[in-house]
């Protein structure tokens, strides 16, 4: 390659024997490209599990009823294939005239964690990480400062000098998590429940950073649930087994509550600390509590307007 170069043009030197150089460069470029293809070959593995239909799927709000039916059939088949479980996935919609709110009686809650466990099972959470949408803080009496609390407490409960503060998604009326989502993968439904379209979320985790209540969870890996432990009663926007790489959250068990049942955490609570209902129904117990108890909300100063209340007797 040690050819003498002829006199250069001021700006663009002419290279002698460009064909030979081009061949060498082309060789290197091909080599580089081949190495690149080899380097990213694990992607092929990932692509195998993702179908074209899944890739092309539109946002939940833009699916026609027929398309929705197709998608749901596909997801059910996937659950059978990947998890070996027969599941039914419904598309539960909000009931008009309903606004769900939740309240917890902190005088009664004793930190036993049954709600955490029930949520884990009900919502088909990954078994290995023991995930749940609920976290219970053990707090010293006499403070509301969460910094003093602990989520990793052990020993028999309740302890005399402590009280217990369960925290889950507050279904905010001004949800910062929804505002920040760049692709509208998460939104607030008419009955007040904030949901995620797991097939639209791109996994940027901006919502996780924005939520002041640590209510969102990311699927760092595909959830693993043994077939016999899978809860087959599922809903598209709720407890169906989530794909890897997307964010999920508490939906007040909309696959139950929109069908007239109570949230799993409430049913599991042995102390009766939990109250759930439709605030628009004047006869509901939740309405009575909000009207007659001294009720407060978490981090009020942030203006998120939770639909989740705490009270003491």
């Amino acid at each position, binding site marked *: 390659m040690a050819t003498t170069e002829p006199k250069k043009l001021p*700006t663009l030197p002419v290279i002698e024997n*460009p064909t030979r*150089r081009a061949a060498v460069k082309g060789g290197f470029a091909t080599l580089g490209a081949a190495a690149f293809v080899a380097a990213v070959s694990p*992607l092929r593995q990932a692509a195998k599990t993702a179908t074209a239909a899944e890739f092309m799927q539109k946002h939940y709000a833009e699916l026609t009823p027929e398309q929705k039916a197709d998608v749901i059939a596909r997801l059910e088949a996937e659950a059978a294939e990947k998890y070996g479980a027969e599941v039914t996935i419904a598309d539960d919609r909000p009931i008009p005239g309903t606004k769900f709110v939740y309240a917890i009686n902190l005088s009664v809650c004793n930190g036993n964690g049954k709600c955490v466990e029930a949520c884990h099972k009900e919502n088909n959470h990954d078994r290995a990480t023991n995930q749940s949408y609920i976290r219970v803080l053990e707090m010293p009496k006499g403070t509301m400062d969460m*910094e003093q609390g602990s989520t990793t407490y052990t020993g028999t409960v309740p302890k005399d000098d402590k009280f217990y503060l369960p925290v889950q998604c507050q279904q905010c009326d001004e949800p910062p998590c929804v505002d920040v989502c760049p692709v509208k993968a998460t939104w607030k439904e008419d009955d007040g429940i904030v949901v995620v379209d797991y097939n639209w979320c791109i996994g940027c985790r901006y919502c996780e950073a924005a939520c002041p209540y640590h209510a969102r969870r990311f699927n760092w890996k595909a959830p693993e649930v043994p077939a016999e432990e899978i809860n087959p009663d599922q809903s598209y926007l709720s407890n169906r087994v989530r794909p890897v790489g997307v*964010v999920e959250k508490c939906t007040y068990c909309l696959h139950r509550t929109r069908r007239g049942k109570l949230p799993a955490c409430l049913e599991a609570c042995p102390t009766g600390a939990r109250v759930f209902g439709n605030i628009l129904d004047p006869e509901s117990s939740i309405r009575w509590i909000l009207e007659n108890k001294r009720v407060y909300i978490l981090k009020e100063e942030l*203006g998120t307007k939770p639909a989740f209340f705490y009270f003491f007797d």
Partner: protein
Amino acid sequence: MSSASATESHITSYPKFVGRSLWLATEGSLGFYAWMTMLTAVFLVGANAWANQVAGGMIGTNMTDQVSWGLYIANFTFMVGLAAGGVMMVIPAYLYHDRKMHDVVIIGELLAIAAIVMCLMFVVADLGRPDRFWHMMPFIGKFNFPISMLTWDVIVLNGYLLLNLHICGYLLYMRFLGLKPNPVWYVPFVMLSIVWAISIHTVTAFLYCGLGGRPFWNTALLAPRFLASAFVSGPAFIIVAMVLIKRLTGVVGLDDPIATLTRIIRVTILVNLLMVASELFTEFYTGGAHASAAKYLFFGLHGKTALVPWTWTAIGLNMTAALLFLWPGLLSLRWRPLLVAACAMAFVGAWIEKGMGLIIPGFVPSTLHEIVEYVPSQLEWKVTVGIWAFGLMVFTIAIKTALPTLKQPAEH
């Protein structure tokens, strides 16, 4: 293979120009080939790590639900600063008509291009579902504009990339045609790019400081602080690049621009330190729960101290660099190695301050005051270094395409 004639249509001559530039940019000494081969190798390691991350899920990173952003977003934030920092050449060149700077201003613009390419790569590396990136594209996806700050960021970053591609492309293309660039076609864009550079870093700051639930970020000073440190790291990188360019290619006329940038850093580095100090004053003098992230950062919290060594390293580097920049002798040619060292210190200092020192403490303690620490995994480091290698490749190639233009001033 002579220059295309000016009468030829741009449709055919622009591709010719691009092809020729690429051809030339891949010509070079043995050292150049070694450098590019090294970068390619590192990039391939990163690409492989990323492919594994996509295939296996982000479990391969050390991020958690408590610390949900880590090394990638830290680097992204820093790279936005580097891209914006390039404007510190543009301002003297175009607003103050600094002739010497004008001749080499393209270095800053090319840096901006490479840095934005890296930004976009870091964002993609951070996505849990990169296969769904098209959901973020306006019109075909579902763009949450103007509510989500992230969509603003997508717009301003891509806009900045296009602006700089246009400016550099136009100037180099005119050179290729042997024509004098017509100011109408680039000066307005240069002016726009000045405002735009400020906007990319402001919007990126708004990404964080708009989150009420994260007290460590929720400060009005974040955007100005971002800018101040960008105006340190950007010029610092360019100074080192220019010292190298002078050494390796014999481009002349770089000493005055280096001196100008040194004087700029002299001011911006102090402004940056002042802002950091005033933030720390509010945090620590007021105290209370809001200061716990800062406490964690500087001294550790409840025995957890993962960030403390990072923080004090950054402070040490920033302070030493600031002192060096204050010393008038640093401008002299004799002390070039010291100038390079000072720039390196300021650069690394800013990288830590804006990366590990800003993103991570936003998540520690978590919103429920859990203290979950974060140390990047090997996979994250590989991907990160791979993206840096790619960025350096882009920058090297870009500078090489501009070399004929850069050498120009010496010829008349």
